[in-house]
């Protein structure tokens, strides 16, 4: 691990993919040369105007960018404090921000001559987005998903299958995102010559955290311009939920140099820290290596990875993306956690004040904005509304029985 260097205002990694001491490339040797190849292909694509033109065209005409910035008037009024704006990624094709990165990576895979795509998915949003772009480009698609997640996100499992993807259930360990990534990596080490691993979060070995962030930075760039146009100034705080951290890093990134904008990442507090059933890496974890990257990791004293819990499958993961670890250590972003119950209540509140049912993951970010808004009158809050709640209706019903009974 390299030692910490001077704080880069734009948070770019060093040449070998380290954000400060975090990140890097911790994978079996069989994947090292393919990762070098991927990095070269990515940097090459970044320099190619034709790549950007095709990606921008797809983002606009296929996925539906730019997404609106919506002023949540009733919610803000009810809370009586900060003015809350929502970046409406829930309106994007497939229902979440995940498609931004999938379109970028599928173009890259095609450029590299790889015709088979594999992916992991937790909540199923990344799996659906991957299945979608594979359908669009006629590529073979296999998605690994924890058996527990398949149960709680069954609608997304069917969506993937309808889109032509093969969904492979993983019954190991906690049967959630971590185990799905294990299995996807085993597939990748076996089939690396013709397969691209379309990793869906700002995790994994370099260049994934960098690449995934860059493909999602459109959210922050748009939101920054939109809020300047609407309010004539930058927001005081930006909120986003953090599992691996792709939606958060995408919206944070363009604001990192704006020192007066608070960046707030919201982890899953699950059933509470005392229970051990959570995914709050900064308060409960310590630096370690999982799935290719060095970052804050929930682990035991022997370095075994802990089982996590969150009512939302997309936040239920033991490691936080390495760039978040670096933003945290620099004090540039702060990270809090919101428990299952508070997230569920925030989802109901947003539904009833604004007519927007958010994804359960997203509801964690909304909940923290709701908590802070009354404390900051006169401020402007920006919340990344990273996904819509259709996929979570089953979990909402399970957890909001009084609503389901019509009470």
């Amino acid at each position: 691990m390299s030692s910490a260097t001077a704080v880069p205002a734009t948070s770019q990694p060093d040449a070998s993919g380290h954000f400060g001491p975090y990140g890097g490339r911790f994978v079996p040797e069989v994947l090292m040369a393919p990762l070098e190849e991927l990095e070269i292909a990515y940097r090459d694509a970044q320099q190619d105007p034709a790549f950007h033109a095709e990606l921008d065209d797809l983002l606009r005409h296929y996925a539906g960018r730019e997404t609106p910035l919506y002023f949540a008037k009733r919610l803000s009024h009810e809370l009586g404090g900060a003015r809350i704006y929502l970046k409406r990624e829930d309106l994007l094709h497939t229902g979440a921000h995940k498609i931004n990165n999938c379109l970028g990576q599928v173009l890259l895979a095609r450029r590299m001559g790889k015709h088979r795509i594999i992916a992991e998915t937790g909540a199923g949003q990344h799996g659906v987005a991957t299945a979608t772009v594979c359908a669009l480009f006629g590529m073979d698609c296999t998605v690994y998903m924890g058996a527990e997640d398949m149960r709680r996100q069954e609608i997304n499992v069917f969506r993937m299958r309808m889109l032509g993807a093969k969904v492979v259930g993983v019954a190991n360990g906690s049967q959630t995102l971590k185990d799905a990534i294990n299995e996807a990596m085993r597939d990748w080490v076996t089939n690396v010559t013709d397969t691209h691993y379309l990793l869906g979060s700002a995790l994994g070995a370099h260049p994934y955290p960098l690449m995934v962030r860059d493909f999602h930075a459109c959210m922050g760039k748009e939101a920054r311009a939109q809020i300047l146009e609407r309010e004539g100034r930058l927001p005081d705080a930006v909120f986003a939920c953090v599992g691996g951290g792709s939606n958060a890093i995408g919206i944070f990134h363009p604001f990192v140099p704006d020192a007066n904008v608070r960046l707030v990442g919201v982890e899953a507090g699950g059933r509470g820290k005392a229970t051990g059933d959570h995914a709050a890496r900064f308060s409960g974890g310590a630096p370690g290596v999982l799935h290719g990257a060095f970052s804050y990791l929930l682990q035991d004293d022997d370095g075994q990875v802990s089982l996590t819990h969150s009512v939302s499958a997309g936040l239920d993961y033991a490691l936080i993306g390495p760039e978040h670890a670096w933003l945290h250590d620099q004090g540039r972003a702060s990270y809090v956690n919101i428990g299952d119950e508070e997230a569920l209540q925030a989802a109901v509140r947003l539904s009833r004040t604004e007519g927007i049912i958010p994804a359960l993951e997203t509801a964690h970010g909304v909940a923290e904005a709701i908590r802070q808004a009354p404390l900051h009158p006169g401020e402007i809050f920006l919340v990344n509304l990273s996904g819509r709640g259709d996929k979570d209706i089953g979990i909402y019903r399970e957890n909001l029985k009084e609503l389901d009974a019509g009470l």
Partner: protein
Amino acid sequence: MSSRIAQKFDELRQRDERALVAYLTAGDPTPSRSVSLVLALERAGADIIELGVPFSDPIADGPVIQRAAERALKAGATVAGILEMARRIRQHSQIPLLLFTYLNPVLRYGFERLAAEAREAGIDGCLLTDLSVEEAGDYVQRMRAHDLDTVFLAAPTSTPRRLELVARYSTGFVYLVSRTGVTGEQDQVSGSVTSMVAALRNHTSKPIAVGFGVSRRQHVETLRAEAEGVVVGSAIVRLIEQYGASPDLEQRLETFVRELKQGTRAPELAAR
């Protein structure tokens, strides 16, 4: 000072034998049984033992070794416990012992603490599956300071530049992964082993051991012409899984490994 691992390869070279490197997951089925199993492997002719330290998320392992890790963790295996196992093995045996694991358990234990305690416990070296040579600077330095070997993996996808790095950072031997994929038994030895060994020899004169998919005497015989050693893992672990509760496990293991060992000997000296 030459390490136990280097000495073993020297001795074997003089006898025109290849090294049989035997893997087992330490603590499977129990810590005390592992000690007995290592001694059985040695009696049967194993030359070097890889003591697998179980990790919760073994991405480079197939189902057999994944299940072994689960069993070992359930039985309470820890780095400290496995070092204690090594001390007990050392009361009876001088067989070279190589820790074989993933980075995080070692990172958590601390490189310096591990190197110092492993050396004292009689461990000879270490291999971390997911630690690339690029990230290994601190680790290699600490291990060297305590005279421990560092073995790194070379893979079918490794470029010449990477083979050179892997060979340079490896001491004791270089572990050549014979095919892309996870650990597990295969019907045949990969057809490209000859060319991979040749490519690696362009960069090193260190001994090469070939692993991944080696499980039968015939595989070992095929590889005799290619490399100084072979690694057998999943086939051994599968026997431990099948007969872990049985008192004749050691006997079964010995019979299986004795047969493999024959394949490492010159044909005229090997028992049929």
